[in-house]
Every structure is written in structure tokens, then in C-alpha cells.
């Protein structure tokens, strides 16, 4: 099957896990990246892209009323683009770094798009579920269940459609973009693998900046650092 369709189907399925409150958390980018990689025949690359995307947002907490990015779909976009574009451009390390950077940037855009879509959808959904409200008041509970569960298809369709368009178009654009970027900066983007996790460290510091917990953060850092130094 076409890899773009495969990745989009995986995305649709994982979006259902995320949006329905099934909540098994297989949709988190760390897991979603690995699953996408397994389906596309390259789990290591999927884990790398999904894992790095996850690390960027490690300290992010979905606060009610604040902007909540659509991380599950974005994580799959990052993994799928990284794997598929790398297949097209080859094994040149300079290009791989550039592909990783562009995949992460596109994934951030996908996360933002998801936020905008679901902000719009929650308003529209109030109108869509009106027949369910009427049926419930008349005691037709089967209709209510049908409407309630059928909306899972929307979550699937949104993720599938978004990923299909983004991955199909992104494959072409990122292949060219990576060549241009690599021409400008050589192999320097290979360092992203070690630098991106620092964004996660900053996010975690932000999250744990509370009196007692910042103590434990410092303790964890010092104990581990000394242990690593001693062991060489």
C-alpha cells in the first residue's frame, strides 16, 4: 500500500485514541512515531523523529482555556516525513539533518492547525449534536448513542485528511528544501539530535519550578551527573 496512505491511516486511528478519551496514550508522539516507523518499515527513524518532537513538548501541560496543540497528529507527521523524505534524498548526513529540521517545523505547523480546527469544531459541534439532545429528551437513546459515536469518524477523517495532504505535499517540498538547506549549512543540522532535547529540559524546568520540586530536580541532576562522571 502507498506509504502516505499507511501513515494517514495510522494517524486517523491514533487520533481516535486521543480525541475519544480512550486515552491509552499510544497517540503520544513518542509512541506514535515508533508505530508510524514500524508501519513504514523504519522504526528507528520513526522513534528518532517522534521522540525528538515529544522532547520539545515534554514540559507542555494542556491547561484548560489555553492553546492546546494537536501533538498526536503532529508527531506522526514528523515521523512519516522524516522517514519518507530520507528515502528520497538518500543517506547523506548533511541532508538527513536538514530533513529532520524541516520535518519538526512542519509538525509544529500541523500541531497549530489542529488547535485551530478543534477550536472551530467545538463551536460547530454544539449545533451538530442538537438532534441528539432532542432525541435524548424524547427517550430515544439509541439515536443519541449513534450520533455520539459517529463523531469519532470526524476525528479519524480530520487526522487522515490532514496527514494525507501534509505528507504527500511535504515529501516533494521537503526533498527540495533539504537540498537547499544542506547547501547553505553543510552538516551542521546533524547536531539537532543533541540540541533539541535541551528545549525539553527548559520546558521541564518551567513545569517543576515549584519550591520542593525544583529541589528534587536539582538533586536528580547532581546525583546523575556525579554518577556519570565517576563511572567515566
Amino acid at each position, binding site marked *: 500500500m502507498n506509504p502516505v496512505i499507511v501513515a494517514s491511516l495510522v494517524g486517523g486511528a491514533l487520533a481516535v485514541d486521543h*480525541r*475519544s*478519551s480512550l486515552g491509552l*496514550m499510544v497517540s*503520544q508522539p*513518542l*509512541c506514535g512515531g*515508533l508505530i508510524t516507523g514500524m508501519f513504514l518499515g523504519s522504526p*528507528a527513524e520513526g*522513534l528518532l523523529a517522534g*521522540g525528538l518532537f*515529544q*522532547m520539545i*513538548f*515534554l*514540559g507542555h*501541560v*494542556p491547561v*484548560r482555556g489555553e492553546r492546546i*496543540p494537536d501533538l498526536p497528529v503532529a508527531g506522526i507527521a514528523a515521523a512519516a516525513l522524516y522517514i519518507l523524505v530520507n528515502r528520497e534524498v538518500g543517506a547523506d548526513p548533511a541532508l538527513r539533518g536538514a530533513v529532520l529540521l524541516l520535518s519538526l517545523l512542519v509538525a*509544529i505547523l500541523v500541531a*497549530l492547525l489542529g488547535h485551530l480546527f478543534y477550536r472551530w469544531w*467545538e463551536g460547530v459541534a*454544539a449545533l451538530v*449534536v442538537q438532534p*441528539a439532545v432532542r432525541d*435524548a429528551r*424524547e*427517550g430515544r*437513546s439509541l439515536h443519541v448513542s449513534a450520533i455520539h*459515536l459517529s463523531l469519532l469518524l470526524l*476525528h479519524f477523517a480530520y487526522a487522515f485528511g490532514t496527514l494525507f495532504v501534509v505528507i504527500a505535499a511535504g515529501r516533494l517540498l521537503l526533498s527540495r528544501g533539504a537540498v537547499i538547506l544542506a547547501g*547553505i549549512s553543510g552538516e*551542521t543540522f546533524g*547536531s539537532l539530535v*543533541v*540540541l*533539541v*532535547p*535541551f*528545549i*525539553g*529540559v527548559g520546558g*521541564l*524546568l*518551567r513545569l*517543576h519550578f515549584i519550591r*520542593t*520540586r525544583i*529541589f*528534587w*530536580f536539582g*538533586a*536528580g*541532576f*547532581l*546525583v*546523575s*551527573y556525579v554518577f*556519570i562522571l565517576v563511572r567515566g
Partner: protein
Amino acid sequence: MIVMVSRWNQMWRLFFLRSSRNARFLDGIGFYHVMVPLLNACNRRGADVRDIARRHLSYFNANPILASYIAGVVTNMEERRYAGEAIRPEQIEQVKGTLSSVLTARGDYFFDVILIPLGLTIGSIFAIYSSYIGPVVFLAFYNLYHFQSRIGGYIKGVRWGEGIGRELVTQLFREQRLLGGCAAFTSGLFAALVFTRASELGGMVDSGWGVVAAAVMFGLPRKVSFMSSVVIVLLATVIYLIVT
């Protein structure tokens, strides 16, 4: 047997509570959907069923995992009411509303601020060394609490009724303090590993930039959203890489 089927039907429906989340009722239709087997089990038609439907088809906003406790408690109270116990519908509404607000605040904090970041940090520690164990450890760790709260919470709610609230909040508070410390310690461990790995692979210049990036991410004012902070720091890192 009928009761068992009804319980099972309610339980699986809890996993789809948020399917029709909307701006007006939030998860109200989802909660009604969970209550449907109860209506069927009561086997009542006409005014009584409509009465329950009206009461449970309203605004409902709760942490989706701890909503299981609320569904269990409401089921317990409705069943006792139809068995003839003197429970007024307003009492059920009051318990539902109080549990929703208390458990939402506590549950959001426990799961979103402590448990998930802790699990993901552990997963990420494995992931920086390209180990497939990371996602497995995260899923096992998170889902242990998840299923315990989802299925165990519903069963406890049905069994103990409205008395469950205080015990649950106390238990969550205790675990929150313990796991909060673990989450912070693990984050420190993650920071140390990221730093040493950057020193080994990228040298002192790259690790120095990494520290600057982490400091900027941490130091940006809270008014700047997390997403904007990420974009700013990532773009600054890209510029650093191009310049150097």
C-alpha cells in the same frame, strides 16, 4: 446477569466519553451516553426515563479518567433511588456537580502535570539512546494508573456511592506528592543525560548553546505561550547552527 451486562456497557462507554465534546454541553452527551444502560436496566418508560435523561443531559465537565468515579457514584445513587431509598434528584445533581469540580481540578493536576510528564520523561530517557523500551515503559506505567482509575474507579463508585469522594481525593493528594518528587527527580536525571551526551557528541560549544536554549525556554515570561516559546528557541537554535 442483567446487572453485569449493564455495568459492562457503562464501562466501555466511559472510554468514549469525549467523542462529542462541544462548546455548549462539553461532555454532557458523553455522560448521557454512559447512563443509557442504566436507563435500559431500570426498564422504565415515559416520565421517569425522561426525567433521568433531562437531568443527565446537561453540562458536564470532568477529567475524563476520574469521570469513571462520578459515573459509578451516580449509578449507585440512581439505583438506590429506584429501589425506594429517599434520595432526591437534587441530591444526585449536587453530588455529581461537586465531584465533577473537585475531581477535575485534582485529576487534571495528577494526570496532566505529574503522571504523563513523568512517564514521558522516562520514555524520553530511553529514546535519546534510541531504545525501543522507552515507549513500552511509558505505556505500561501510565496505563497501570489509567486502568486502575477507569475500571477500578467505576467499580468503587458503584459499590460505595457518594462516600468515595473524600477517600479518593486524599489518596490522590498522597500519590501526587510522592510522584511529583519522582517526576522532578527524573527530569533532573534527563537533564544530566542530555547535557553529558551533548558534551560527548557536540563538544562544549554545542552543550553550552544547549544550556542557553534551556535557560531561554525556562526564562521566557509565562505570558508567552508554550508553543511560541518552543518556536522562538527552535528558530534561535537553527540560526546558531547556520552561523556556526
